[in-house]
């Protein structure tokens, strides 16, 4: 995974709350067996509307999405993160995120930056005062800046470390393989096993 420190790019305001992962990417696109090429699927239903924010010319090439609270709720589909990444987003800013979505983001180099709800309103206002304006998101300092507005954001320290270092989770875990093997020797006989088939 590529190291993530600072992102600067067009910020797009998505004035909707409870953006569930079914809206981010509808189920019909989950039939694919690949991990890339989902940019066409992002917000597929809403993008049919020519006035939808991501269809507007001033927000083309956006890298920072600023959404209402409870972004990424619902289904566990990591495709939602892949679609946001494939479309070009590096950061989603929201007051609250669905837990699984936030976890998936961290695995795929998408920063889910949690900002106070009133700060989201202020960011929206700053963007809409100058559509197409750039935002700078500094992961090390944990700040998001739009025009002359700078607000802090929350991100879990471990996720931040992994993003900044660009570390791979499985590789990290396998450093503890001896501990896993030792744990397995203590596993009680009553615990479930799928094989042999009974």
């Amino acid at each position, binding site marked *: 995974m590529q190291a993530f420190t600072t992102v600067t790019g067009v910020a797009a305001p998505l004035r909707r*709350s409870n953006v569930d992962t079914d809206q981010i990417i509808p189920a019909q696109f989950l039939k694919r067996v690949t991990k890339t090429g989902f940019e066409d699927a992002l917000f597929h239903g809403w993008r049919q509307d020519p006035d939808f924010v991501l269809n507007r010319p001033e927000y083309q090439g956006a890298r920072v999405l600023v959404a209402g609270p409870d972004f990424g709720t619902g289904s566990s*589909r990591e495709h939602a993160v892949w679609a946001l990444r494939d479309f070009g987003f590096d950061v989603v800013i929201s007051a*609250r995120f669905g837990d699984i979505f936030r976890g998936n983001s961290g695995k795929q180099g998408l920063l889910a930056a949690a900002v106070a709800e009133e700060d989201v309103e202020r960011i929206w206002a700053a963007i809409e005062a100058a559509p197409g304006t750039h935002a700078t998101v500094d992961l090390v300092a944990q700040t998001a800046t739009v025009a002359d507005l700078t607000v802090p954001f929350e991100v879990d320290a*471990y996720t931040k470390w992994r993003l900044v270092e660009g570390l791979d989770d*499985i590789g990290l875990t396998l450093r503890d393989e001896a501990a896993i093997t030792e744990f397995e020797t203590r*596993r009680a006989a009553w615990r*479930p096993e*799928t*094989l042999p*088939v009974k």
Partner: protein
Amino acid sequence: MGRTLAEKVWDDHVVVEGKDGAPDLLYIDLHLVHEVTSPQAFDGLRQAGRPVRRPDLTIATEDHNTPTLAIDKPIADLTSRTQIETLRRNTAEFGVRLHPLGDAEQGIVHVVGPQLGLTMPGITVVCGDSHTSTHGAFGAMAFGIGTSEVEHVLATQTLPLKPFKTMAITVEGTLRPGVTAKDVILAVIAKIGTGGGQGYVLEYRGSAIRSLSMEGRMTICNMSIEAGARAGMVAPDQVTYDYLQGRPHAPTGPDWDEAVAYWDTLATDDDAVFDAEVFLDADELEPFVTWGTNPGQGVSLSDVVPAPESFDDPNEQAAATRALEYMDLEAGTPLKDVHVDAVFMGSCTNSRIEDLRAFASVVRGRTKAEGVRVMVVPGSARVRLEAEAEGLDRVFTDFGAEWRFAGCSMCLGMNPDQLSPGERCASTSNRNFEGRQGKGGRTHLVSPLVAAATAVRGTLSSPSDLEADAAPSTDDAVLAGGAR
């Protein structure tokens, strides 16, 4: 200080304790796999040259893409077929047990695990599916994960995770007749909101929960994710043990005794402290129904569609306005006046044998409302066989319903079972999101009993409305008197 059920199960699975803000490394006892969220994970293993560490703790089934008619024919949708075939290739290559379409143990992954006796108290269960929370009904720590985590578990049988916060959802009292587990959980979500459970594992407690069957507890835990929670749990008790004992993979002999002795220690200690607590009065609850496009937008069936202005929060107001527009509903309309085009009885929330029995108890000997399409979809091939052995299939078909093969079916638009744009459905599933059951489809989440009564009347209804229909009304009595 004492510990909660969730903390006990967590503690017993920590392989490496996280220090200085790092997550714990948690051991996973059971990994359930399906065709949608696994192909990219198996690909990742292949690219890194890694094996599946514990195929003997892994099991796969086909559910999301599978058709529920003509299952002996090749799957018509080519991308669906490719995804299914990819799972078959991957499980064969990596030595993972698979129950494919047509197999007697095939079905929705969250119905299959408990049915085989693989889901049990005190274990950790994961699956690349948010409704994995279902398995918490047994006192397991069970939660949905993304595809990167699926790959992680396949490779290491562990996950790096920070402990979840704990929330007690206490439901005391006695549920009225016609009020079910589904109504309880819809009421919980309406109360705490779709984000209320974020970061938490919910423990459902209290006399109303204790009185529920395992099927009811699974329905409740299943929808924990709809409140934003990672997991939902119910402490194991005799109901749990009675359900589990004798199932194919349940422990036997001395292993069973050892397991029960351990499971009996799991209940939350009296002096344990939850990070948050919520109380619900079971006696107050009525059959529940959603009116909007997130599962928190629900009210009692006897209520009216709320006005957006009735919400204090501006985001909720805006969401309600959008929802009413999408749902084509007007504020103030009694929910019972709302006509439906379809009724869907199925999904990992409500497709177990008890759910089918509940639906059958209402529709038995009746005929469905004209113009309403009614689909009954068992959660697994095993449930289908069980229902047919009880003659429920005849009850459904005599009523005018379609009796299908097992799968996720109309819960999500990934297989041929979908709503058409503008169609309105009373559904026993778990999500009423825009387009969830098919593009432009409108979903009202309900219990199996409400689904059944709605199928009879064609408008959102509870079984008590059917009783009222059957009783001679005052007007009839006056008429009868006048004629004499």
